[in-house]
Every structure is written in structure tokens, then in C-alpha cells.
């Protein structure tokens, strides 16, 4: 174990004051070096980032400065060691804020912290405050604040927008951010960074403590933790990194079964996985999507001859059901849990001794996080088995495995602060107190994600908050905030503040319906009532016809219909179940892993670690076609069943490939190559059509460099985006976050169409009239980095310039097989348009004629 921050000489257990020293001693413990280092930094008045693997005692390290400070202060007062006036000595506000991304984590911490506090008899009051905290308790917390408040980013936003903020936070000394690496990369993190900037206005001496897993760019987190000055080099907090710990013991599943060419189910490996569960005490099985979780759970129970207690846990399940699983897990009553990312973060889950990862992990850091779930003690190695679902995934798993050993990290960057979040914050600040635009701009740019924002952009967002920021200035009389004579902006009426509080936060769920299980009571009628199983996305339910079946919560359910905002189902049903295709939970292949896989492909010397069947597959590819070098883009063309195929292997992840597919198809259309469709996977993509594209390239009818020119991201992208549902979804999120439209609240759905307004319709109206509106800019920025991965696409187009290799083949190449097998299976993300309507209408005509 190494610590890269200077630790002063003589820092030992004895450095701790009583009763801490004897508490440690009494348990035969030594305080860990990083715990003391963090305490030392805090006592010297510094903010710090602590990077440590799970099980390193991060939580206690984070809270130690607080506990010591309060205890010493209390002691001094009693003994009169330090004389202070009454006004000075009486602390009225909160001493320490602890912010975690998960409610459950805050509650978990409260429990864990209670033990040392009670055992040492510390004079510290700890409370949680989350969305679930009852109103009367919140009120009491404002009147009589606890010493330590454990809370979430949304609650911080609410508290700083309230009138009591200055009183609550006047004495704030520390703020601890847990799982900082996961907090900062989203819009939630952007909002929180602005909240932190505001807290510093209340107490300029405020110190921050960030707790994080290993990240690719620790300096970004260090900058996040301390105030920045626009135009200057980033200011950084102190940093304490604990490396080492026991090396995880990761293997790729060894199997005698044939690894399939394509697919994501890993069904071939079920017997081996079940065997591994039997051989261990408690196994956590991670998958990438909720639908995979459902499938895996079903598949395991089908062969569960020993009736092992195996449970299912994912975000769409009803909360009570999840709590049950969590409780059973904590009591070690389960042998295995199938889970998605809901279990990723640092909650303590009993004695897990094996992690099985089904499918490729898509990112090396994600793998490291998940593996950290097993053997929650740092000194013992975690055990993990990776189960690739297909042959490409074998390579990806191998790449991830190398990365984990090498400590390579590919966490996403923090990203620049978004405008919609800024809009929400500006309104919140007006709700708290009148502000000067200059001062608020200074405050906002002190938050590291917003340091780069230009003043005129800030002013446009401010204008948006006030009057909507439209070129047609008709809303001045309806302004939400107004510039008053004294130069401050004020909320124009109290109703605005109320509205703001109801719409706070940045988490926008896709519209979901509750799934209610009813008894099927014969033809057409269903018994009302029955339990709620969880939630499913509206867009999925819209694809179902009554009588269709699907898998949910480990059950095969029959869809009966939609009643108000509920999806009514009954048990059983026949036919092959469709599976909920949740929008959430599909991670793109990280750039880092993609590069590793490309490298592996290019260097046959590295293949010896791969299983024989995968090696053989690559060998034949080398014989029949080409293996692209690391920087090349390989394109193969071949005929197959009266279609011509163009196969590409960019390894840039599905999202980027899908976007590229849409754009290339448009261009090929114009070049009269008559493309018919395309399919994209994480590794490759295929376009097929009526003309031989290879021949067209050869004859120079289509120029490859034109086809892949970076200007494809210009007008073509714009034209396609305009009608894209993906952009509409992004717009909806921006519109809600920025306060343009209201959030849907549970129970509010029935208020009817007259009072609600559809974000899609607003988008259409705004785009056709004011395409440069600030909110449309925000939407495009989001799409560029998120949904469409345009940035990644741009990087790739630049990388492959002059490095495109075309291989014309007579038939399918080995590398192409997995992609070809996806055709027809993968729904082409896309636009369902009038042709669907024509089909439905024309069926009737056909019927009438036939």
C-alpha cells in the first residue's frame, strides 16, 4: 500500500485524541495511514480527494475529521480550555454535510457510523434527509439542525434555495462527497457543483472531502472539489491515493461448450455458471441490461435442481421487492443474486465470495467496480469470472482483464456544465435571495464544470430563466424573475418558488407505467386490484397487444391492457415471451477497451491467451480476408442471398455505429447505391443494398474518402437529427431540467391533456421557429456527447482518414458472421413512420380485394 501524499512524521495512533486513540487500541486496530493523512490535511485546513479501492475504510476516513473536530471542540468548551464569547461558541447550523448518490447509501452510512459514535460516546447527532424523509422531520431539521446531515444532491439544491440556507450553513465546516467518481459525470454532478459553489458563499472556509474509486483523471476531481478562478490554471485539492490491496483474481469462463458467434444471452454457459454458484457461498451475477437480468434469472431457475435461493434485483422492480432481496442478502440467506447496475455502488452486501459478470463489461473501470463487490475486505483478493456471450466479447473480456491487472482506467470525463442545469440553478438562487448577475456569474464560474462558460452564454441562460429567451419577446409581462431597480434579480412571485421546488433535480425517468398483476377472469374481464410488480417503460408497453407475453420480475406475464397509468397483466400465457427492452442500462463500449480489442486483433502474438475456438476464428479471417492494423478501418464487401453487403469494423460502440449507419445510408442513397438497411453492434456494422458497393468503390463511382468525410457530421447529421426520436427524448429531459415544462409527479397523470403539454410538440414548434434557441443548443450538446456519441464518431472519422482498407470478397468473412447473425434480431433503432400506417391501412384493402 502506498500513499502519494506527504504524511508528516510522527503520525500514528497516538496522533488521535481521546477517546479515539483508545477506541482503536481497544479493538486491536491501528488507524490506517490514509485515515490519519486525511485527518491531518483536514486539520491543516485543506480540501482532499481520497482515492481508495472498496474495503479500505474510506467511510471512517471521511468522517474522522468531523468526529474529531466536534469532540475536541466540545471537550474544550467543557473544560474551558479555549475561552470564547457565547455567540462564538454556540454553533447553530450543520457541522458536516455528507452527500451520496444513493438514498440507500446515506441510510447505510448512518447505520455504520452509529457503531463507533455510540461506542465512544461521542457528542454527535447524525440524521439523514432524503426525498423519503417526512415533512415534519425536515422542518425540525431546519429549526434544530443535526451535527452531521447525510443527504443527496437534490436535497442540497432544495436546502440552498430555501430562506434558511444562511442560518443552516453558516457554521458548515466539512462537506463529504461519497462515490464522487459516479456523482460528477452526470448532470446531477453539474447541479451539485453549482450547489457547492453556493455553499462556499455561505462559508468561505468550507473544506471538502471527496471519496472516490480509482478514476482515469484524478485531477479533474481535485479541481471539482475546490473553487476555480476563470482564466487561471485549475486549482486542485490535496490528493491521497491508496493503490494496491490484493490483486483481484479474475478469470474468463473456461468451458467445453461452443462459444456462439453472436447474441447476448450466454445461454451456452448456464451449466458452468450454475456450477460456480454451487461451489461458492454467495455469488453476485452482474449483467448489463435489465432484460438480460430477466433472461439469466429464468435460465438459472430452469436448471436449479438443488433449489438454491437465487434472487433477482434490478431498478424496475418494485422497491419493496428490492428491499426484501437486499435484506436477505445482508443476512446471507441467498446463494446468488442476478443484478444490474443498481448494485454497483458501495453498499455493503454481506459475504459475497464470487462475482460473475455475464457479457462483456464494456468498460475496465466498471469491471473493477463490480469486482470490488466481492470480498469487501481489501487485503483479500476478489474472485471474479467473466462470461463472454459471444466471440467478440471473448476478446473484449480479455482486454478488460488485462486492463484490470494493469490498473488502466476508463471512467468517463466530467464534461462541461450544461445549460439546462444552470437554468435550474439560477432560478433556485433567485428563490433563495435576490442576486446580482455579476456576482452569480463569478460564483458559477468558480465551479469547475462551469469555469469555461462565457458571459454572454450565461446571460442567455439568465434570459431564458426570466422570459424564455425567445427572439419574439412577448413574455416580458410573464417574467419569472425580474431585474429590479437596485440591480438585483428577484423572483416575480412566490408561486414561482413553489413551482421550482416541485421540479428540482436532474433525474428524468423515461415515462413508465406501473405493472399490476390481476387475475385473468375469462374473456375480456379482469379482477381489479392485485400487487404492483414494478415499472416498465411506456414505449415498451406501447408495442404490446393484449395477449402478448413478456418476462418481468422472473415471471412470464400476459399483457391485458393499459388502464389509466397502469399496465395490467395476468400470470402465465403461452407463446415465446417478448422481453422488456428497457432504455436504460446499455453501456457503450469504452474507447479504451475498443482500442485494446483493435490492438489484440492486429497482433496475433497476443492470441495465445484466447480460447482455441476464438483463435481459430481469427486465423481463418486472416486467411480469407484481412486483419486490420490498429489504426485502420477495414471494410469488406460481399454478395449474400441477392443482396450486397458492406461490412465495417470501427469498434466504436453501438451508439456511434448506429449514428454512422444512418448517415452512411443517406449518403449511399444519394450515390445511388440503393441501400436497404443497416445493423450495428458494439464492434462492427453492416449496410446492405441492391448494388455491389465494393464494385462501386473500385470503379470510383463512390469515393470512400467522401463517404467517410468528416462533413458527414454537418448537414446530413442535422437533417437526420431534426426528426429523430432520440433528439426529442433529449429535448424532453432538457426541457424538464431547465423548468420549461413541469415534471410528471406520481398521481398527477390523470389531470388530462388540456393542462399538460407534450415536449415533442414543443420541440417541433421551437425547432421550426427558433433553431438557435438556447435549449436547442443544450439538446444538441447533450446528444453530441451522450445518445449519439457524435464526439466519438468525429474522433474516429479523423483517425481513419487515409486508413480505410477495402477488401472485396466473394462470400461472407469469418469476422462478418456475428454481425450478419444480428440482422433481423436487433431492432434497428429508428423511426417508425408513415409506411407502418400504410401497411395497416392497405391490409384492409388487400383483404377486401382478396
Amino acid at each position, binding site marked *: 500500500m502506498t500513499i502519494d501524499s506527504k504524511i508528516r512524521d510522527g503520525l500514528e495512533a497516538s496522533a488521535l485524541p481521546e477517546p479515539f486513540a483508545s477506541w482503536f487500541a481497544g479493538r486491536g486496530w491501528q488507524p490506517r495511514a490514509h485515515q490519519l493523512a486525511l485527518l491531518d490535511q483536514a486539520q491543516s485546513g485543506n480540501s482532499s480527494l481520497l482515492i481508495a479501492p472498496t474495503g479500505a475504510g474510506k467511510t471512517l476516513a471521511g468522517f474522522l475529521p468531523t468526529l474529531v473536530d466536534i469532540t475536541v471542540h466540545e471537550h474544550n468548551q467543557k473544560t474551558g480550555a479555549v475561552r470564547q464569547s457565547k455567540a462564538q461558541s454556540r454553533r447553530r447550523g450543520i457541522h458536516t454535510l455528507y452527500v451520496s448518490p444513493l438514498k440507500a447509501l446515506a441510510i447505510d452510512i448512518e447505520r455504520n457510523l452509529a457503531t463507533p459514535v455510540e461506542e465512544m460516546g461521542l457528542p454527535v447527532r447524525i440524521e439523514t434527509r432524503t426525498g423519503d424523509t417526512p415533512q415534519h422531520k425536515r422542518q425540525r431539521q431546519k429549526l434544530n439542525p443535526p451535527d452531521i446531515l447525510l443527504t443527496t444532491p437534490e436535497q442540497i439544491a432544495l436546502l440552498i434555495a430555501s430562506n434558511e440556507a444562511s442560518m443552516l450553513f453558516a457554521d458548515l465546516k466539512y462537506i463529504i462527497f461519497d462515490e464522487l467518481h459516479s456523482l460528477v459525470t452526470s448532470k446531477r454532478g453539474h447541479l451539485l457543483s453549482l450547489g457547492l459553489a453556493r455553499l462556499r458563499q455561505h462559508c468561505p472556509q468550507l473544506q471538502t472531502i471527496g471519496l472516490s474509486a480509482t478514476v482515469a483523471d484524478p485531477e479533474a476531481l481535485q479541481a471539482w472539489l475546490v473553487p476555480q478562478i476563470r482564466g487561471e490554471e485549475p486549482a486542485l485539492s490535496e490528493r491521497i491515493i491508496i493503490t494496491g490491496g490484493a490483486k483481484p483474481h479474475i478469470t474468463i469462463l473456461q468451458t467445453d461448450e461452443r462459444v456462439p458467434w453472436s447474441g447476448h444471452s450466454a445461454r451456452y454457459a448456464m451449466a458452468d455458471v450454475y456450477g460456480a454458484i454451487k461451489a461458492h457461498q454467495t455469488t453476485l451475477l452482474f449483467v448489463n441490461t435489465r432484460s438480460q437480468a430477466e433472461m439469466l434469472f429464468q435460465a438459472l431457475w430452469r436448471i436449479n435442481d438443488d433449489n438454491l435461493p437465487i434472487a433477482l434485483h434490478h431498478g424496475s422492480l418494485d422497491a419493496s421487492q428490492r428491499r426484501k432481496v437486499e435484506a436477505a442478502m445482508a443476512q446471507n440467506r441467498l446463494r446468488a443474486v442476478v443484478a444490474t447496475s443498481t448494485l454497483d455502488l458501495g453498499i455493503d452486501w454481506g459475504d459475497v465470495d464470487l462475482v460473475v459478470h455475464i457479457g462483456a463489461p464494456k468498460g475496465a473501470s466498471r469491471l473493477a467496480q463490480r469486482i470490488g463487490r466481492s470480498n469487501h475486505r481489501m487485503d483479500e483478493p476478489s474472485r471474479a469470472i467473466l462470461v463472454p456471450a459471444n466471440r467478440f466479447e471473448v476478446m473484449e473480456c480479455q482486454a478488460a482483464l488485462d486492463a484490470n491487472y494493469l490498473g488502466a482506467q476508463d471512467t468517463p470525463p466530467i464534461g462541461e456544465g450544461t445549460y439546462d442545469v444552470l437554468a435550474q440553478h439560477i432560478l433556485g438562487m433567485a428563490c433563495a435571495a435576490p442576486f446580482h448577475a455579476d456576482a452569480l456569474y463569478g460564483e458559477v464560474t468558480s465551479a469547475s464544470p462551469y469555469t469555461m462558460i462565457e458571459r454572454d452564454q450565461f446571460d442567455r441562460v439568465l434570459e431564458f430563466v426570466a422570459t*424564455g429567451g425567445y427572439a419574439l419577446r412577448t413574455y416580458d409581462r410573464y417574467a419569472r424573475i425580474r431585474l429590479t431597480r437596485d440591480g438585483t434579480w428577484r423572483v416575480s412571485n412566490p408561486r414561482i418558488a413553489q413551482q421550482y421546488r416541485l421540479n428540482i433535480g436532474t433525474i428524468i425517468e423515461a415515462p413508465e407505467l406501473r405493472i399490476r398483476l390481476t387475475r385473468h377472469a375469462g374473456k375480456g374481464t379482469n379482477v381489479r386490484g392485485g400487487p404492483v410488480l414494478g415499472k416498465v417503460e411506456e414505449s415498451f408497453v406501447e408495442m404490446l397487444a393484449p395477449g402478448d407475453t413478456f418476462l418481468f420480475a422472473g415471471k412470464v406475464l400476459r399483457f391485458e391492457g393499459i388502464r389509466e397509468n397502469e399496465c395490467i397483466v395476468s400470470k402465465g400465457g403461452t407463446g415465446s415471451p417478448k422481453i422488456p427492452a428497457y432504455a436504460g442500462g446499455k453501456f457503450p463500449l469504452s474507447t479504451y477497451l475498443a482500442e485494446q480489442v483493435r490492438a489484440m486483433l492486429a497482433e496475433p502474438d497476443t492470441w495465445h491467451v484466447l480460447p482455441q475456438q476464438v483463435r481459430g476464428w481469427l486465423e481463418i479471417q486472416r486467411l480469407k480476408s484481412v486483419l486490420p492494423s490498429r489504426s485502420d478501418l477495414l471494410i469488406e464487401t460481399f454478395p449474400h442471398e441477392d443482396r450486397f453487403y458492406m461490412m465495417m469494423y470501427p469498434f466504436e460502440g453501438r451508439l456511434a455505429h448506429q449514428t454512422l449507419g444512418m448517415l452512411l445510408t443517406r449518403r449511399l442513397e444519394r450515390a445511388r447505391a440503393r441501400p436497404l438497411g443497416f445493423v450495428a453492434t458494439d464492434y462492427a456494422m453492416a449496410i446492405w443494398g441492391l448494388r455491389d458497393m465494393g464494385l462501386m468503390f473500385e470503379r470510383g463511382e463512390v469515393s470512400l474518402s467522401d463517404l467517410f468525410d468528416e462533413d458527414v457530421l454537418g448537414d446530413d447529421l442535422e437533417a437526420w437529427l431534426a426528426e429523430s426520436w432520440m433528439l426529442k427524448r433529449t429535448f424532453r429531459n432538457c426541457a424538464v431540467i431547465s423548468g420549461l415544462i413541469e415534471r410528471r409527479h406520481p398521481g398527477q397523470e390523470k389531470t388530462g*391533456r388540456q393542462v399538460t403539454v407534450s415536449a415533442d410538440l414543443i420541440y417541433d414548434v421551437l425547432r421550426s421557429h427558433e433553431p438557435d434557441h438556447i435549449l436547442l443548443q443544450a439538446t444538441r450538446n447533450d446528444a453530441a456527447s451522450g445518445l449519439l456519441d457524435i464526439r466519438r464518431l468525429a474522433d474516429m472519422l479523423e483517425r481513419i482518414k487515409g486508413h480505410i482498407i477495402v477488401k472485396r470478397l466473394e462470400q461472407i468473412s469469418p469476422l462478418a458472421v456475428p454481425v450478419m447473425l444480428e440482422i433481423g434480431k436487433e431492432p434497428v433503432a429508428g423511426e417508425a413512420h408513415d409506411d407502418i400506417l400504410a401497411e395497416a391501412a392497405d391490409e384492409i384493402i388487400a383483404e377486401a380485394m382478396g
Partner: protein
Amino acid sequence: MNRASAAQALISDDMIKTAEITICATTAICDPLGALYLPESQTIVVSDLHLEKGSAFARRGLLLPPYDTIQTLKLLQAVIERYQPKCVISLGDSFHDRVGAAGLSSECHSQLSALIANRAWYWVAGNHDPDRPAGLDGDWVDELYLEGLCFRHEPSSTEATGEVAGHLHPAARVVRRGKGVRRACFATDATRLIMPSFGVTTGGLNLRHQAFRGLFNKGQLIAHLMGRDRIYSVPFERLIA
């Protein structure tokens, strides 16, 4: 297709495909822009324009784009130019609220006035606009009888025969090949017709929603869905909730 881009890029008249329907022996044409045309009396019927919806929200602190009226009027103008009607019936909820008409910008006001001029124009009372629109010409009626049909805003529970109503904003959904498409529609069982909403920011209500219960003879009910350039006619039993 969305209405706002339809307003942006209007399709030339000879390309469109309408649907001819019969309500109680009266022939009518459903236009893909969302208007009903009665050839006999050269009348256009539009419903639920919800003009000034944006500003109505703005008054409540939700600053929606102030362009909805401009676009709805553009569509209305297009459909009037297409049929050159002698008479226009706006079937209620013409304005999103009582003060909507007074809030029209001067440009919109003159555009609308020009459309009203030189033809018979009827404002039918709606639940959103129970009063005569201030400062605009045209006759103000609760209901209207023409060509043997009765025009009123809310469908009545008793007199279905020959009724043309709005209010419910019917929309219908079709699923094929795992893809769903939802569009506003004319809903008729040949006895009664419920009009789609015409305003660009008006949402729709699925024809299978309980609000439509008892209004139609389901065996005869056909949804005429509005596509980009044509009407798609689909029987009720093929629609999805």
C-alpha cells in the same frame, strides 16, 4: 409527421390523398391537415385550435415557445387556400382560454381577420373558450346545424345521429413489425364524427381510452389517421390502446 413541420413545409395540393366519408348520408372529406370539408355547402370544419396555448402557460410561469399561434394559423390558412370555402366552422376550444383572443399579437390578429373576412365564419363555444372571442368577427354559436348535421364542441351522450364534435382530441395507434405509430385521427362510425384537434401543440387521446366509451358503434368505427400527405383509414379493432 408533426404538425409544426407540416406548417413549415406544406405539401402541394395535388399530392395529397384525402378520405371520403359519410355521416348520416352526408358526404365529407377528411383532409390530412386535420380539417373536414363538406363539398355540398363548401364548408371547412376545424376543431380545437387552442390558439394562444403558449401564452396561457406563460401566465402560469411555464414559458413555452410563443410560436404555436403563428403555426396553427399557417396551417389554417393553408387549408382555407386549398378549399376556398364559403364557410368555416371552428368547433370550439378555438382559444386555449378566455383571454386568449385578446392576447393575439397584432400580426396574428390581422392574419386571422383576413381569413374570416369574405366568408361565413362560426365560432362554436368550447369549454376552454365559453365566451365570444374578443375583437374578432364571425358568428358566435353554441351549436350549429348544416347539411343535416349538428356541430357542437362536446359530444353529447344522447344525440349521436349526425353529430360532428371535437373536444376529445382523438388519436389512434397502429403497431406493425414491432413498431408503433400514433397519430391524431378523425373517428367516425358513420353516425357520429369526432374531429382531431387542429392546434400544433395539442396532444391526443387514444381512441381506446374510456372517455370514448359509449360514443360509437365499435363495429362500424373507423379511425382516419393523419399522415404526412394522406389519410390512413384503419378499423377500430386493429388499433392498439
